[in-house]
């Protein structure tokens, strides 16, 4: 009884402190998710805009239709392909450049840091224009370059086999700077004594990297991987600006592009909401994997 009395004022203060944040989270995160889920159980569409009475509760039939839609599976495949290929490449490139920038012998570090980071803050539309020129089958820089090795011109954005890799390449270039900066921060946190100790024990650069740098970067690594994976699952802007229609034979259509197309182009809001819920589950699963890894590391 006395313990509760002593605790109560603190608890009340605590509740007061979290209420503003909880309210915001409820209004802007939790309620929209619930509303989206409810919407996904209806056939809200262009006729519903005319009159709400033209809306039916259709239960899971949006999901049923979605799972039977080959275009959805293709967009899922494209998105996963993008994440599985683009994600690791982005991370490796980011880590590589971070290591170079962190190397003691490196010169003009601020300049290179700016150059590598510039794509992240450049507007995607401008980037798309430049990359479209680079990928142009006849006059593009890339084909000119490959041509000097006798490679036949490739129709980068027009060939269903090459369109997605081309978009991945552009996305890696656009995004790796962000992860690079985080890796750089992680590297600068590595205590110099550890490297000194490793050198005294006779470790060369490779073993220093393996036994000192990587373990130090562990948490950063998990964070960057998950942020990259979640970001790439929500892939939209890069393919949207390069191949607005989803590319030849939908080869660059991502889940979010499919959702946008269904929702805002055709105004099939119920169906688009079902896509959003599926994507939500995927992203939550991705975040779940992260916390699992974290817990295992902590244990």
């Amino acid at each position: 009884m006395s313990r509760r009395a002593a605790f109560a004022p603190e608890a009340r203060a605590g509740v007061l402190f979290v209420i503003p944040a909880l309210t915001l989270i409820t209004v802007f995160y939790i309620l929209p998710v619930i509303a989206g889920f409810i919407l996904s159980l209806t056939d809200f569409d262009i006729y519903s805009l005319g009159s709400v009475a033209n809306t039916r509760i259709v239960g899971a039939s949006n999901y049923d239709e979605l799972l039977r839609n080959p275009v959805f599976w293709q967009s899922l495949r494209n998105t996963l392909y993008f994440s599985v290929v683009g994600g690791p490449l982005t991370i490796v490139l980011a880590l590589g450049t971070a290591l170079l920038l962190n190397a003691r012998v490196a010169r003009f570090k601020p300049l290179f840091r700016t150059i590598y980071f510039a794509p992240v803050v450049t507007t995607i539309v401008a980037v798309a224009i430049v990359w479209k020129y680079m990928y142009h089958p006849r006059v593009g820089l890339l084909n000119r370059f490959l041509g000097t090795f006798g490679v036949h011109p490739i129709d980068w954005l027009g060939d269903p086999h090459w369109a997605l890799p081309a978009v991945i390449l552009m996305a890696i270039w656009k995004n790796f700077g962000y992860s690079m900066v985080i890796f750089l921060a992680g590297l600068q946190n590595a205590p110099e004594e550890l490297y000194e100790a490793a050198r005294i024990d006779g470790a060369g650069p490779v073993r220093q990297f393996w036994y000192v740098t990587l373990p130090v970067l562990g948490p950063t690594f998990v964070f960057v991987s998950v942020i990259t994976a979640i970001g790439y699952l929500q892939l939209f802007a890069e393919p949207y600006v390069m191949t607005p229609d989803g590319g030849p034979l939908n080869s660059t259509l991502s889940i979010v592009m499919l959702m946008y197309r269904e929702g805002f182009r055709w105004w099939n809001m119920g169906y688009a909401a079902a896509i959003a819920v599926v994507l939500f589950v995927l992203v939550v699963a991705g975040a779940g994997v992260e916390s699992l890894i974290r817990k295992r590391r902590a244990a």
Partner: protein
Amino acid sequence: MSNATRVTRLFPFCILHFAFLIFLQACSGNSAHHKTTIEFWGLGREGEVVAILVPEFERRHPEIHVVVQQIPWTAAHEKLLTAHVGDSLPDLVQMGNTWIPEFHTVGALEDLGPFVAASHAIRPENYFQGIWLTNLADDHLYGVPWYVDTRVLFYRTDLFDHAPKTWSDWMQVMQRAKETSGRKDFYPILLPTNEWAQPVALALENGATLVSEDGRPEFNDPRFIEALQFYVSMFRRGFAPVVPASLIANLYQQFAEGEFASFVNGPWHVGEIRRRLPKDFQSKWATAPMPAPDGKPYPGLSLAGGSSLSLVRRSVHKAEAWQFVEFLSEPAQQLRLYELSGDMPAVKSVWDAPVLAADDKLRAFRVQLDYTAPTPRIPEWEHITAVIFEEGELAARGQFDARTAAARMEARVNQMLEKRRWVMARK
């Protein structure tokens, strides 16, 4: 600390700035007192051009002020729908005429019947019939044609021996062009695989209706299958490259260099070819009405395209906006629109103006405009067009034949129209 001092130092400046803004507001407020402001959304180039026509209107109607907002074509459809949902549509909008049934369904547009009935300037008989029909939805009028567009055949006179009049004639002309050219990267025709207009025009020519009034797909109709077979065969025989429009780097340059000998497209290309290509090239190309299916009268039918002017139902300035519609429909303004943008006049009498009548490249369009057919007037049409070119592209790439493509279209569109049939049944 330093931030705080900076803010205090800027404070007087901010006050001054606000005072100035309020002053400006007061000035404009004064003159706007007895002026009605109407807002007009123009799409693409027309959005720019209409701003040039506005001063004359404002001179004649000093009590009305027109604000023009320009919206790019590529985002226009989404933007207009979203604006309707957000209740932020302007008073008057330019509408692609195939969108009218859709925007009528969502209740965005005002019935123009009473306005036209009371109008001396705008009479249905002044317009091309096929185009006027596209503005009807559920037997009511929701748009006044502003400019028209249809598709005709653009061809190189030095690469085609003559303008084909029938489909089989067309095939032979392309075959000969390919044989005489000898170039490996030469194509007798360009049909971008992400454009629905070409296969749909061929289908309309062949008498296909695509979708019935009560919302049933008619893609398994032999007339449609025959037209699709003809379309697909142009790719399968190597006459047309399987590429979407986004990958054609420079249509005009490639046309001039003879990489392809023809394409089926709209009137805006006439101005562009003249503007972008040298003078000595201008004698090497021509336009011709659509070749007709064998056994059908020449010319064949083509699309009834173009843009209309529509009043927004929620607008409170419909009378003023209608005056602007009447102004834009005057023959003099229709002619100016043509001169400024190359958009073809919707009012028939304007075509007698020398600048249009004497233009040999436009003659095919004038002929074609009397032979147009509207596409199905249902809100799903925009979505259906995507199904047509998606399945059409797969057939063009050889994944299956035209008959299978038609069956796939039938199945997909049937599912799409289930809701329409339910809504229609409830009425």
